[in-house]
């Protein structure tokens, strides 16, 4: 591990912690944050605070978004003009064939079906391991197991020649 990463002052990483709590830090910066967190109890506490505050805010937003907005109409409703019987019938028929609510309902139904199918398809590549970063004191061999079921990281002494009898690649 690069010692500079662990030695970085907490203050230089703190702005990134908030973004990290929201899964908005990527690449090398994310790596640096993770490695600093692994070594710094104070920053782990700060991150935990950010996550708890974020969760509490999301919960409040969720609660307040449950208000009934059906009374809101734009543009403001005006009294409907008096209609003759024939015109009222025509109005009712055309209102029922207004395409937008039907299209919106159809789109929602399609989204629902896609969501259900997505859930029913289950967890696709099960038991997979993806190594993002690997540093070791000596040579290393990474051996993907059967169909990704189990990945093996083999560490060698710096003086050793790599020679585990593993045959899978």
């Amino acid at each position, binding site marked *: 591990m690069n010692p500079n990463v662990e030695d970085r002052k907490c203050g230089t990483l703190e702005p990134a912690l908030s973004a990290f709590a929201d899964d908005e830090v990527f690449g090398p910066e994310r790596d640096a944050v993770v490695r600093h967190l692994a070594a710094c109890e104070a920053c782990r506490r700060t991150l935990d605070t950010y996550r708890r505050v974020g969760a509490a805010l999301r919960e409040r937003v969720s609660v307040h978004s449950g208000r009934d907005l059906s009374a809101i109409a734009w543009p403001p409703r005006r009294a409907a003009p008096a209609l003759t019987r024939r015109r009222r019938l025509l109005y009712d028929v055309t209102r029922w064939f207004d395409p937008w609510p039907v299209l919106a309902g159809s789109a929602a139904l399609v989204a629902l079906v896609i969501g259900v199918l997505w859930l029913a398809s289950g967890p696709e590549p099960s*038991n*997979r*391991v993806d190594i993002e970063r690997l540093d070791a004191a000596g040579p290393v061999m990474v051996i993907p*197991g059967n169909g990704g079921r189990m990945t093996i990281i083999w560490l060698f002494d710096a003086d050793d020649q790599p020679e585990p009898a593993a045959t899978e690649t």
Partner: protein
Amino acid sequence: MTRPAVVALLLLAAITVSAPARSQSSVSLTVQVIHASNAGTSVDPALAKIRAQLGSMKYSSYKLLETRPFSTTLGAKHAMPLPGGRTLDLYPFGLSGGSLELLVTITDGSKRLLDTTFRLSNNGTILVGGPAHGDGVLLVAISGSF
């Protein structure tokens, strides 16, 4: 119920069903410490689950030294002593795309034998092997479920 309300309800249901659960933050990790050697030909029955993978190595005997389950939360760091004065550090730091993000280090005194970050899918296992132990080597199997 008016039609717009029905449409809104359907849309909400679709979004709710489609959205992955993000609120989970508790994870279960299991660490198995195994001694692999060529002394004998026995495989510990407790290792039946990973026996097929162990078969790809050059050792004939596998003995389970220790199993340690951890129930933990994201952001909590755990240290576990390994045979030979080594230390295993586990730091589950995120859940992303249905995978657990984990930082693992193995140190031997001041020497860092391994320092890695990886994503582990549910019930996935990663096996770290190589450090010498007795007449064989040490294997450390790390599994996670969440």
